[in-house]
């Protein structure tokens, strides 16, 4: 069988429908193992397709035999393929990490793993689809799994966080639906390439309306200020690995949708400025709020929002270097934030409460986890020789090329804030005074350790040899900026 992009979607769906029967009639453990196999298969699909795509340029696949714009099509471009591969790898590592997660009860783990697998699948669907309504459907798949997983733990305030997220998320979906509706009345098509081709035919007031509705709708998923009220609660109340999934997968999908709308669908100059200003405000407010947090996971959540603001700024600059930087940032954010959430949730699990001050002295009790957390902290603030350094360098170079001095100063100032609050945690870990000697330490299981070590190794390897990844980023940035070839690739499907 030829590997094609639809495997990303079809195989997990088949597995999700089969797992309830498998676990009931064959073996209970299959409910936990099968999602892992499926996610590993997604990683395999990514590797095969990434190798193909560097030769062919674009892999486009028709669904149900109808070529665009009559049917839905999946587009595996270097840009979307890069994100899909990133999501599948992070998704697999999150599965590996949570395979033995202590706090998930046996009878409920089946649902946890199905939901986590479908979250990854939904996000990959968002990235791959070439149809705006299909994107909405996948966004809802991701959102519903996210609501359920946010409120997964009964003992926490997960239900509040989940309800809040659901409320804001519903507004997002209403706005996206309205935008799709108005778009359809104007162009009579839902295919993104055709919309991109004809977007200039829409009368200006309606075009502005559609753009605003899309920006607000996807801005909510992308944690843009002031639409990110759901994020800190959702991150801090959900299970630890799901915090990693939010940072590594869900938000990435939101940013992708935002970028796709601005870069491909409506190529309006004002939208780029909007990204810069929106990103800047998001970044400054979130990073300042992060300093004030006493709860580790909330701090990580605000830091995550700030990083997404940074990504939006980088996309807003809009030159090729900036886009490479933005994609590099997305990669780093996915890898490093996942590591921080994973190691951070072991640290908080072993402290009396979730406060940062309660982490004192854990550096000696959990040496490897603390070391990995420290590695993540150093990497995310952008210290050389870790991978975070390169992405910041790319964005700063791009900003310097455009003579955006104020922006550079803002980014550097925010970096200092980041250094302050991350180093506070690391120093508490190692030099803080222990209050209670008697805490029994829960050592991470082997699979969680392997998962975290893979992420840690990635940070160091990419930091030392950034060329491994910049090659892909280069192609991806070219593809994103080359709107014409995207349109052509979709609309000439009929020939083959």
């Amino acid at each position: 069988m030829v590997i094609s992009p639809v495997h990303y979607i079809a195989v997990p769906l088949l597995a999700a429908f089969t797992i309830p029967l498998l676990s009931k009639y064959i073996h209970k453990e299959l409910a936990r193992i099968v999602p892992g196999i499926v996610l590993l298969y997604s990683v395999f699909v990514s590797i095969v397709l990434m190798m193909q795509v560097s030769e062919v340029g674009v892999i486009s696949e028709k669904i149900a035999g109808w070529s665009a714009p009559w049917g839905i099509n999946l587009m595996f471009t270097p840009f979307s393929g890069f994100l899909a591969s990133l999501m599948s790898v992070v998704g697999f590592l999150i599965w590996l990490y949570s395979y033995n997660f202590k706090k998930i009860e046996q009878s409920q783990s089946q649902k946890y793993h199905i939901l986590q697998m479908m979250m990854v699948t939904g996000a990959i669907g968002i990235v791959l689809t070439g149809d705006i309504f299909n994107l909405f459907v996948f966004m809802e798949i991701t959102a519903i799994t996210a609501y359920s997983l946010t409120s997964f733990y009964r003992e926490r305030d997960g239900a509040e966080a989940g309800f809040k997220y659901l409320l804001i998320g519903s507004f997002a979906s209403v706005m996206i639906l309205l935008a799709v509706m108005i778009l359809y009345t104007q162009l009579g098509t839902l295919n993104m390439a055709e919309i991109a081709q004809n977007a200039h035919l829409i009368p200006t007031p309606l075009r502005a309306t559609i753009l605003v509705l899309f920006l607000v709708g996807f801005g909510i998923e992308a944690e843009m200020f002031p639409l990110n009220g759901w994020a800190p609660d959702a991150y801090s109340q959900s299970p630890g690995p799901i915090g990693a999934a939010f940072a590594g997968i869900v938000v990435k999908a939101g940013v992708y949708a935002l970028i796709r709308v601005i870069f491909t669908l409506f190529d309006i100059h004002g939208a780029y400025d909007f990204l810069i200003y929106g990103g800047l405000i998001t970044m400054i407010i979130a990073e300042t709020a992060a300093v004030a947090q006493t709860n580790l996971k909330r701090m990580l959540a605000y830091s995550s929002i700030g990083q997404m603001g940074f990504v939006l700024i980088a996309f807003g600059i809009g030159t090729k270097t900036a886009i490479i930087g933005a994609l590099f940032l997305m990669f780093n954010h996915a890898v490093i934030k996942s590591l921080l959430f994973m190691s951070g949730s072991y640290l908080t699990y072993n402290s009396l409460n979730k406060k940062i001050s309660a982490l004192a002295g854990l550096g000696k009790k959990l040496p490897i986890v603390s070391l990995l957390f420290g590695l993540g902290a150093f990497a995310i603030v952008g210290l050389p020789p870790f991978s975070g350094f390169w992405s910041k360098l790319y964005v700063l170079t791009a900003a310097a090329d455009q003579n955006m001095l104020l922006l550079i100063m803002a980014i550097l100032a925010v970096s200092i804030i980041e250094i302050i609050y991350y180093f506070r945690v690391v120093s508490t870990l190692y030099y803080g005074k222990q209050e209670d000697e008697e805490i029994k330490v829960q050592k991470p299981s082997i699979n969680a350790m392997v998962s975290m070590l893979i992420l840690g190794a990635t940070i160091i390897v990419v930091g030392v040899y950034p060329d491994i990844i910049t090659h892909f980023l280069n192609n991806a940035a070219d593809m994103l900026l080359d709107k014409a070839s995207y349109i052509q690739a979709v609309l000439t499907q009929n020939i083959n």
Partner: protein
Amino acid sequence: MKKVLVLVLLVIVGYFLTDTFNLIPFGENRIGNPQDEQTVAGYYLNNTVEKTSVANTVTAIVVNYRGFDTLGEVTVLFLATTGLGSILFRRKEDEEEIERINKPSSSLMQTGSRVLFPLIALLGIYVFIHGHLTPGGGFQGGAIIATGFLLMLISYKNFKAGHTMLNWVESLAGITFVSIGLWGLLTGGTFLENVLPAGELNNLISGGVIPIIYIAVGFKVAAELTGVLDILLNIKPKK
């Protein structure tokens, strides 16, 4: 104070919506002449009969042209049931402590619903079997069947929706949908491709895989909705 702010917001949103939809006249022909095939809708109207032999264009769009959306939609329902199960999760020992929230109903209601239930189920099955010929289809038929189950659930306190059966139905229906898709991928080259012969227009057996998928969707929707109703009704702790 808050009310005033909200009212101002409502006025703004209302103005914005009316303003926008004033630019989109109601009842205007936006698809053009279908024979020109300029728009997607025109293409569908002009080619559905010829290419898929399905009388109901909406069904052809839902199941075939945009079948991927429908697969996603079925998945959303499946995930909602799974999510509901995880949100309202109970430990095994608590399971005994739960009962239905409704009070026992009168014998009039009970007899009535017992008579109506098979008829409702029959109507639902009719609606989704004829989804490609008449208005309706899997979602509508499934919803009708679920209302029958709702009637039984609220009139009989001891009526069990049969979790094993629901699990089997929803899993098998979902597997059928994806397997037909994969069958298309293996034999026709694209996922969800209509690999069976299209047949003759307005025959019950026509449209290739479209009716099969819609029947599977019907069963799946009925099972999912019944499952959701069952979970949401069984929440009262026993004293």
